[in-house]
C-alpha cells in the first residue's frame, strides 16, 4: 500500500529538485548563534518550585524508612515527596515504554544506585539541594548482581519479581507474568541448521567480545517542567525526543484522557537517545498535581550518569567458514546489560539482536539475544540502538577470520556480503541497499590497493575497515500537517524534535520542494501535542523517512488544493498548473502568488489551506520461534568506516591518523547536514572506541562527571577525518531519502580495532581500547604479561 502511493507521488514530483539536495543552512542558525534559541532548560514560570531528587546510595535494597523531618525544617522547603504521596494520585505508579517496571519514585525497594527515592521541592533551587541532603533513607541491603551474564543465570538475585510488558509493543506480550528471572526478553532467529553448518565448515572461530557502558552526555541535561492549566489540565514542558509517547504514558498513569495532557518541547541541546520515551515527566507531573504549583526538575550532568546509559554487552560469536572464505554458519549469543529498569532495552535487544550476523549472506544461523536486568543504572537507546555492540563482534571477528585464511579483509567481505534481493537472516529481502557500493567507496577513500607502510620499532601503523547493518525500527507512525496561512506563508506542524540533527530544515525542504517555495521561508513548528499531530518519536533514524514522507503527503494535499483554486481562477484544468517560486503558474504565463490565492479562495486576506499526511509503513511481526518475517523493516541502513592508526608499543596509545565514515543514505535531502551527521557520529563513536567508559564498582559510577568521564574535544580528533555517501534513492523514501543519524556509529569501533590488529596482530576483545588495555594485550602477545595479568 505505501509503495503504490509513493509511485504515484513520484510521477507527481518534478526533477531536478530545487530544495531537495540543496545544503540549506539551518533555519535556526541566527537564534543559536545569538544564544536566543529556545530550550526547555531556559524555561521559568511564575510561582514555580524546583525539585531536587534524593537518590539511592545502595544498589539493591529494601527501604525501611524515610525521615524527611530535617529537610522539612529548612526554611523555604515546600514539600518532600515520596512514593506515599504519589500513591494518593496514581494507584499503579509504574511506567516505561517496553515494561511497566519503573516506579515514579522508589516503591518499597531500590534497584540501582542513584534511583530516585524522594524529591524536595522549594522555590529556591539552592534550598532544595541543601535539604535533599538531609532526607534520611534507611535501607536493608539485598544481594545485588551487576554482570549481564551472571544476572542471566538461574539462581542470580532476582531484581523484579515478575515481568510486566507494557503492551505498546505487541511482540513483547508473550513475556507477561514471567517470574523468577532477570532475563527481560529472549529473542531468537533461526535459519537453516547451524549444527549442520558447523559440521560442514572447514574452520570454526569462536570469540567473546564486550562493550563497556557509556553515556550520552547531551549538553542540555534532562529537564522537565509541569504546570496545571485551570483545575484539571496539565502541561508538561520537556526536553523530550518523544512528546506523543509522554502524553499517552502520563494519561495512562493518571487515568486521564489524552486531551487533558499537553506535552511540548523546544530545541533540544542534544538527545542521542537519552531523552526518549519517558524520563522525568511522570515525576514532575505528579509533583505539580500534589502541590498544585508548577514544578521544574533539571538534572545535573552528574545525575545523567544514573539516569540512562548505553547498554554494556557481551557477545559470543561462533562462525564456520569454508577455506575459500565463505561464511556458512554463524551462532551469536548476546547479553545486554539493561540495568535496573527496562526502559527501551528489550527493543534494543530484539532489534539489534536480529542483525547480529552482520550484513552477510549466511546459510545457517542461530541468534539468541537476552535483555538482562542488573543492579546498574538503566540502559536504553543510544545512537545506533545496539548496532555498534554487535558490529563490534562480527566485524572484529571478520578480520581475524580473514587473516587466518590469508584473505584480504576487503575481499573477505566482498565474498560474503548480502546482495540486492537476497534474504537477510530474518527472511526479509535486502532491497534498496547498496552494500557493494559502500564497500567500493570505502576502498576508494582508503586507497586500499596502495601499499601501506606498517612501520617498525615503537610506532607501528595499521589500517582497517568495517561495515554495520541496521534495520530501521518498525512498526511506527508519523502524522504531519502543512498549513498555508491567510497571507500565503507556510508552516509545517510536526512532532519531530530538532535536537541538533537538523530536522526542522529538512522538513522545510520537503514541504518547500512540493509547494515550490524556498525552505528558508517555511516555518516548522516545534512539537506540542495540543497542535502538532502524532509521531512515534525522534529516534532510530526514522524521522527523515517517516515524517519526511508524512510532510510530503501533507504538502501534496495542500498543493492539490492550491492548484484547484488557481484552476478555477484561470478557468483551466488544475493538472495543467504547477507550483513554482511561491506561486501557481499556468503554461500561458499567468500566475497567482500564494498570497493572491488565499485572497482568491477566501475573498479576503484570511483563512487556511490545510493538508494532512500520515505514514505508517507496512510491517510483519517476526515469528517468535524463528525470528522470520517477510517484512521486518521499512528500510535497511548500512554504514562503513575505514581507519588508519599509529600505535605506540611502549604506552599502548592509539593515534587515529585517518577516519573515513561512509553510508548509504538513499538521497541526501541536505548534503551538508548529512555530512555533519556522519562526521559527528564518527567523532562520538571514536570517543566510545578509545576512551569513554563508565567505571562501575558495585553499581556505583566512579566517574560520573565530565571531569572523570572524558568526551572527545578538539585535541582528540583524527588528523584526517572525512565522510562520504552513496545515493541510490530508496523507492519508499521521500524523494528517495533514508535516515542517517545513526549510520555513522556502526563501524568506526571495529575499523579502528581492525587497524590495530593489522598493525600488530593483537586482539583486544573489550571496548574501549584504552592505552592500558592495549598495552596489556601487547605485553601478553609478547609473552611478558603485566604483573597482575
Amino acid at each position, binding site marked *: 500500500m505505501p509503495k503504490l502511493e509513493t509511485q504515484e507521488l513520484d510521477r507527481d514530483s518534478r526533477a531536478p529538485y530545487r530544495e531537495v539536495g540543496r545544503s540549506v*543552512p*539551518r533555519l*535556526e*542558525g*541566527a*537564534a*543559536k*548563534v*545569538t*544564544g*536566543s*534559541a529556545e*530550550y526547555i*532548560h*531556559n524555561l*521559568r514560570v511564575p510561582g514555580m518550585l524546583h525539585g531536587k531528587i534524593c537518590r539511592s546510595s545502595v544498589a539493591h535494597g529494601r527501604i525501611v524508612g524515610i525521615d524527611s523531618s530535617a529537610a522539612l525544617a529548612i526554611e523555604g522547603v515546600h514539600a518532600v515527596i515520596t512514593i506515599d504521596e504519589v500513591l494518593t494520585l496514581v494507584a499503579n505508579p509504574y511506567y516505561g515504554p517496553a515494561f511497566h517496571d519503573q516506579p515514579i519514585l522508589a516503591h518499597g525497594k531500590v534497584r540501582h544506585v542513584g534511583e530516585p527515592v524522594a524529591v524536595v521541592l522549594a522555590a529556591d533551587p*539552592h534550598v532544595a539541594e541543601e535539604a535533599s541532603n538531609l532526607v534520611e533513607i534507611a535501607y536493608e541491603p539485598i544481594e545485588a548482581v551487576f554482570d549481564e551474564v551472571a544476572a542471566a543465570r538461574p539462581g542470580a538475585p532476582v531484581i523484579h519479581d515478575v515481568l510486566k510488558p507494557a503492551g505498546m509493543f505487541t511482540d513483547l506480550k508473550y513475556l507477561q507474568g514471567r517470574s523468577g528471572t532477570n532475563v527481560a526478553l529472549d529473542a531468537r532467529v533461526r535459519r537453516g541448521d547451524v549444527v549442520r553448518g558447523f559440521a560442514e565448515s572447514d574452520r570454526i572461530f569462536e570469540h567473546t567480545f564486550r562493550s563497556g557502558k557509556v553515556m*550520552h*552526555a*547531551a*549538553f*542540555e*541535561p534532562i529537564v522537565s517542567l509541569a504546570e496545571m492549566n485551570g483545575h484539571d489540565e496539565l502541561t508538561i514542558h520537556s526536553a523530550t525526543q518523544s512528546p506523543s509517547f509522554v502524553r499517552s504514558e502520563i494519561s495512562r498513569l493518571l487515568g486521564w484522557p489524552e486531551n487533558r495532557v499537553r506535552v511540548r518541547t523546544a*530545541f*533540544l*541541546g*542534544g538527545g*542521542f537517545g537519552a531523552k526518549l520515551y519517558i524520563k522525568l515527566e511522570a515525576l514532575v507531573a505528579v509533583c505539580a498535581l500534589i502541590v498544585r504549583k508548577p514544578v521544574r526538575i533539571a538534572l*545535573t*550532568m*552528574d545525575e545523567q550518569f544514573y539516569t540512562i546509559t548505553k547498554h554494556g554487552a557481551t557477545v559470543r560469536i561462533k562462525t564456520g567458514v569454508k577455506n575459500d572464505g565463505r561464511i556458512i554458519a554463524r551462532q551469536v549469543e548476546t547479553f545486554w546489560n539493561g540495568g535496573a529498569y527496562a526502559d527501551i532495552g528489550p527493543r534494543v535487544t530484539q532489534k539489534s539482536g536480529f542483525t547480529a550476523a552482520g550484513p552477510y549472506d549466511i546459510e545457517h544461523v542461530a541468534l539468541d539475544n537476552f535483555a538482562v536486568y542488573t543492579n546498574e543504572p538503566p540502559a536504553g537507546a543510544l545512537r545506533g540502538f545496539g548496532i555498534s555492540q554487535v558490529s563490534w563482534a562480527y566485524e572484529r571477528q571478520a578480520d581475524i577470520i580473514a587473516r587466518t585464511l590469508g584473505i584480504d579483509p576487503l575481499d573477505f567481505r566482498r565474498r560474503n556480503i548480502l546482495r540486492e534481493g537476497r534474504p537477510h537472516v530474518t527472511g526479509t529481502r535486502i532491497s534498496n541497499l547498496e552494500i557493494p557500493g559502500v564497500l567500493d567507496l570505502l576502498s576508494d577513500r582508503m586507497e586500499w590497493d596502495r601499499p601501506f607502510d606498517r612501520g617498525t620499532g615503537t610506532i607501528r601503523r595499521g589500517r582497517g575497515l568495517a561495515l554495520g547493518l541496521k534495520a530501521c525500527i518498525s512498526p511506527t507512525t508519523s502524522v504531519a500537517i502543512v498549513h498555508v496561512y491567510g497571507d500565503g506563508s507556510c508552516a509545517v506542524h510536526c512532532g519531530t524534535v530538532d*535536537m*541538533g*540533527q*537538523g530536522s526542522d530544515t529538512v522538513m522545510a525542504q520537503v514541504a518547500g520542494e512540493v509547494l515550490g517555495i524556498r525552505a528558508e521561508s517555511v516555518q516548522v513548528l516545534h512539537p506540542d501535542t495540543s497542535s502538532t499531530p502524532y509521531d512515534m518519536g525522534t529516534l532510530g533514524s526514522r524521522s527523515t523517512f517517516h515524517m519526511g514522507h508524512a510532510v510530503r503527503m501533507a504538502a501534496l494535499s495542500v498543493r492539490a488544493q492550491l492548484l484547484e483554486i488557481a484552476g478555477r481562477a484561470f478557468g483551466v484544468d488544475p493538472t495543467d498548473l504547477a507550483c513554482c517560486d511561491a506561486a501557481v503558474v499556468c503554461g500561458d504565463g499567468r500566475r497567482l502568488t500564494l498570497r493572491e490565492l488565499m485572497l482568491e479562495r477566501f475573498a479576503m486576506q484570511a483563512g487556511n489551506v490545510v493538508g494532512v499526511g500520515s505514514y505508517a509503513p507496512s510491517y510483519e511481526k517476526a515469528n517468535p520461534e524463528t525470528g522470520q518475517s517477510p517484512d521486518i523493516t521499512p528500510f535497511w541502513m548500512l554504514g562503513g568506516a575505514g581507519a588508519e592508526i599509529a600505535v605506540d608499543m611502549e604506552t599502548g596509545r592509539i593515534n587515529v591518523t585517518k577516519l573515513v565514515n561512509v553510508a548509504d543514505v538513499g538521497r541526501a535531502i541536505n548534503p*551538508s*547536514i548529512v555530512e*555533519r551527521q556522519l*562526521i*559527528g557520529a*564518527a*567523532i*562520538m563513536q571514536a570517543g566510545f572506541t578509545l576512551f569513554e567508559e563508565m567505571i562501575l564498582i558495585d553499581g556505583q559510577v566512579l566517574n560520573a*562527571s*565530565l*571531569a572523570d568521564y572524558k*568526551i*572527545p*574535544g*578538539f*585535541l582528540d*580528533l583524527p588528523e584526517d*577525518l572525512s565522510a562520504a555517501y552513496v545515493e541510490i534513492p530508496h523507492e519508499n523514501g521521500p524523494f528517495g531519502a533514508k535516515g542517517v543519524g545513526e549510520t555513522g556509529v556502526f563501524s568506526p569501533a571495529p575499523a579502528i580495532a581492525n587497524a590495530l590488529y593489522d598493525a600488530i596482530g593483537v586482539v583486544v576483545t573489550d571496548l574501549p581500547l584504552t592505552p592500558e588495555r592495549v598495552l596489556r594485550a601487547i605485553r601478553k602477545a609478547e609473552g611478558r604479561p603485566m604483573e597482575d595479568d
Partner: protein
Amino acid sequence: MSGEQGRTIPFMLNDRPVVARVAVYETVVEVLQREFGLFGARESCGQGLCGCCTVVVNGTAVSGCLYLAVLVDGAEVVTIEGLATGGSLHPIQQAFVEKNGFQCGFCTPGFILMTKELLAHCPHPTTDEIRHYLSGNLCRCASYLDIVEAVKMAAEAGGSTDRG
C-alpha cells in the same frame, strides 16, 4: 536571602550599567538567567569543563557556572547577547551560521565568545592554533571541523574588530 548572604552589586552588562541583588554563593550564570533573562550562557557540566557557560569578564573569558556573581561587582561583563548590534550579527556569529559551526547549539555561545577572545589575541590563527585555543570548549554533536572553518571565515571577515 539573608543580609549576610546577599550583596547588591553594580556592574556593566553588555555595555549597560546594571545593579543586581545576589547571594554570595550564586554563580554568574544563575544571576544572568534570574535577574536579566539572559540564557545564552548556560550550565551543562557544572565543572567549568565544557565551556557552555562562557561569559567575558573584564575582557577575559571565564566559566560562568563556577564564577561567583559577587566577583563581577564593578566589572564589565559581556555575554553572547551583547555581540550582535541591532539586528545584525557579529562577523563571528555570521561565520558560524554560514559554516554550520553548530548542531544542537547548546555549546555555541561559548565557542563564539572564545573565538572572539582568540581573534583578539591572534587575528589570523592557523588550524592548530584554533584547535588549541578552543580545546577547553566541548561540543557533543562534534561540529569541530565546521567550527574551525567558521573561525577561519570570521578571521578573514575581520572578526577581531570589536563591535560589542
